[in-house]
C-alpha cells in the first residue's frame, strides 16, 4: 500500500497495465515527453519508448479513429483526449465507430479501447476545458462510461477498463487529480464496470452522484446528518453507462427520496435518466420528487462565476432540504 493522489494512481495503473500486456499502447496530445498536461502519463515514454507512448498531432477524430483501427486489429489502445470539451471533434469515431463496430461486423470485430479524458470544473480553466459531456455517451449504445472519484477507484476502474473488451470512455475528474491522497494497493485489483458503490448507507434519503462531486457530496451529507440528525445514503455510480439499476432502485426503495448531483448541465443529462429510471421502477416508493442539483442549462461559464454555477454545497443542501420538505 502506498498513498497516492488520483493522478498518481492513474499513472501507476497505466504503467502496470503496459507492463502486463504489451498490446497496450498510449496515444494522445502531449502525452510523451511532456507526460500529459496533467502528468497522467509522466515517465511512461521513458519506460516504454516512443513506440508505446505516442505523441499525436492535434486531431481528436484521428486519435479515436486510429485507436478503433488498432483495437480491431488486436492492440489495446489507451487514447487521451486532452480535455473532454474536445471530444466533440471525435464524436463520430466515438459514437458511430468505436461504439458500433461490434454490431456492424456481426460480432467479428471489436474495439477494446479506452479513451481517457479529464473533465469537470472548479479549476479556473479557459472555455471548453471544464465541460461535463458524459451524458452524450450515455445515449450512445456500445460505449461504456466509467468515472472514478478517488485514487483507489481510479486504479481499479482504469485497469478494468483497459481489460474490458468494449470501448470505455474513462473520465477523470480534473479537480480531484491532486485533491487528496489515499491508500492504494500496488497489487492488481479490479473494480467491476457497471457496479455502483454505496459509499455510505442511510435510511432517509439517497444522494446519487459520481466523479467530481463525490467528495463534496460526502462533506455536505456529513454536515447535514450532524445538524439534522438524519441518515443519508450516498451512491457513487462509478459507471454511468451501463447504469447500475439494482443499486439505485434498492436504495430508493429503502429511502423513498433521491437527490441527484452532477456537474453536467441539467436538461437531458445523466440525472434525467436516473430520475426516469427511478420513476419507472420505484415510483410508489417515492415520498418526494427527485431533485437534480446540476450545472445550469447554459454553456459552462467563465471562471469568475463558476463556483455559483456548479452544484456547490449551498445548492446541494438546498436540494436535500427540498426533498425532505415533502
Amino acid at each position: 500500500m502506498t498513498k497516492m493522489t488520483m493522478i498518481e494512481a492513474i499513472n501507476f495503473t497505466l504503467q502496470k497495465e503496459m507492463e502486463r500486456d504489451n498490446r497496450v499502447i498510449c496515444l494522445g496530445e502531449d502525452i510523451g515527453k511532456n507526460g500529459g498536461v496533467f502528468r497522467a502519463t509522466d515517465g511512461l515514454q521513458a519506460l516504454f519508448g516512443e513506440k508505446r507512448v505516442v505523441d499525436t498531432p492535434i486531431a481528436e477524430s484521428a486519435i479515436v479513429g486510429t485507436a478503433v483501427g488498432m483495437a480491431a486489429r488486436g492492440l489495446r489502445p489507451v487514447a487521451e483526449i486532452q480535455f473532454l470539451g474536445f471530444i466533440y471533434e471525435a464524436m463520430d469515431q466515438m459514437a458511430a465507430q468505436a461504439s458500433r463496430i461490434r454490431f456492424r461486423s456481426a460480432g467479428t470485430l471489436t474495439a477494446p479501447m479506452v479513451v481517457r479524458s479529464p473533465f469537470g470544473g472548479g479549476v479556473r480553466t479557459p472555455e471548453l476545458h471544464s465541460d461535463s459531456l458524459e451524458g452524450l455517451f450515455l445515449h450512445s449504445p456500445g460505449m461504456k462510461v466509467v468515472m472514478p472519484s478517488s485514487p483507489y477507484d481510479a486504479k481499479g476502474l482504469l485497469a478494468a477498463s483497459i481489460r474490458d473488451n468494449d470501448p470505455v470512455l474513462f473520465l477523470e475528474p480534473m479537480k480531484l487529480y491532486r485533491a487528496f491522497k489515499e491508500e492504494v494497493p500496488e497489487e492488481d485489483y479490479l473494480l467491476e464496470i457497471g457496479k455502483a458503490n454505496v459509499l455510505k448507507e442511510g435510511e432517509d434519503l439517497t444522494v446519487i452522484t459520481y466523479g467530481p462531486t463525490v467528495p463534496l457530496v460526502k462533506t455536505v451529507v456529513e454536515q447535514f446528518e450532524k445538524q439534522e440528525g438524519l441518515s443519508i445514503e450516498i451512491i457513487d455510480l462509478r459507471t454511468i453507462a451501463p447504469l447500475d439499476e439494482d443499486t439505485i432502485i434498492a436504495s430508493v426503495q429503502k429511502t423513498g427520496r433521491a437527490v441527484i448531483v452532477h456537474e453536467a448541465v441539467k436538461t437531458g443529462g445523466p440525472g434525467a435518466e436516473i430520475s426516469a429510471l427511478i420513476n419507472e421502477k420505484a415510483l410508489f416508493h417515492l415520498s418526494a420528487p427527485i431533485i437534480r442539483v446540476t450545472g445550469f442549462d447554459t454553456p459552462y461559464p467563465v471562471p469568475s462565476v463558476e463556483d455559483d454555477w456548479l452544484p456547490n454545497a449551498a445548492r446541494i443542501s438546498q436540494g436535500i432540504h427540498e426533498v425532505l420538505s415533502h
Partner: protein
Amino acid sequence: MWIEPNERIVNQVQILDESGSIIGTNPDIPDEDLIALYKWMVQARTFDQRALKLQRQGRIGTYAPMIGQEAAQIGSAYALEKRDWIYPSYREVAASLVHGVSMSNFFLYTMGNLQGGSSASVTNVFPVQIIIGAQCLHAVGGAWASKYNSENSVSVAYIGDGGTSQGDFHEALNFAGVYKLPVVFFVQNNQWAISVPRSKQTASDTIAQKAAAYGISGIQVDGNDVLAVYSTMKEALERAREGKPVLIEAVTYRQGPHTTADDPTKYRQNEEVEAWLDKDPLKRMKAFLLDRNLWNEELDQQEFEIANEKVSKAFEKASSSPTSKTSEVFDLVYEQKPKQLIEQQNSIVTEGALK
C-alpha cells in the same frame, strides 16, 4: 516564392489506351494474371448488374452500383497479398470480392441481414463503412497495429473523390505521414459525389497532388486501365511496406446512379456518360486480351455465363440464409449484455406474441 494554385502538372499513369493498345511500356504481367484480372471484372460486373436488377424487383435493399469502376477496384485489390487488409466504403463490392468476401455475404449485406457485416470473419476486409472518410482512420490504425506487430501487412483505405473533402481524410493522411505507416489511400475519382462534380468538390486540379500536404507519395492513374492500376498498386504496396504511405488517385467514372435511390438524369448530361462508356474498363481489357490471343468471344460468353451462374447461386444462398432476428441485436452491443439490454431483449420476445 509563391506556391501558385495548381502549379504542379500531374501526369496520369496509363498502359492501355481506350482501344486496348499498349501506350506505355509493356507491363511485365504473366498471362494468367492478365486473364484473371479480366475474369474478375466479368464477375464483378455480372454481380453488379444482377444486384441492380434485384433491387428494382424489391428483393434486396439500397445498392450502390460500381459499374465502370471495375478496373480501379480489381486492379488494386488483385495486387494485394492475403495478409493485407482493405477498408471499403459502400461501393467496393468488386475489391471486396477479389479480396475474399463471398458474393452471398455481400447479398446478405444488401438484404439488411446482420450477417452482412461479418466479412472480417473470413478474410481481411473491414465491414462496409457508410460514414464518408471514417474508414481512412481505421486503415491508419490497422496499419499502425501491423507495424507495431511487424506483420508486414498493408492497409488499404478505399474512398471516393467526394470523400477527400472530409476532415477524417486529412487527419488520416497526416497521421500516416507522421508515423510512416504501411497504408495506401486509394481514391476512386469517379467524377461524381452523388450530384456534385469533381470540379466543385475541391479546387485542386488533381487529387493526387494532395499528397504534397502530408509529405507522402502521390500518383494519378487511369482508373479504367486495369493494367495501369495493377502495376501502380504493386509499386504503391512496395512503398507502403517500407513505411512510405501512398495516395493513389484512380481516375474513373461512375457509369450508373449513385445508388438505386438516385436519379442521375437530374444532374448530369447523357453525353458525358456516353463519352465515358468509350473508356469502359472491360471493353478495353477484352480488346487487349483478344489482341494477344489470350481470349476469344466464345471464352468471353462462357465466362459471363459462369459468372451469372455464380451470382445466382450466391443469391440463392443468401436468400435461404436465416433472416436476422430482432432479438439478436441485443447480443451485439457489448460482450456481455447489461441488465437493461436483457430486459429489453425479453420485452421484445413477449411482444412478438402480442402482435
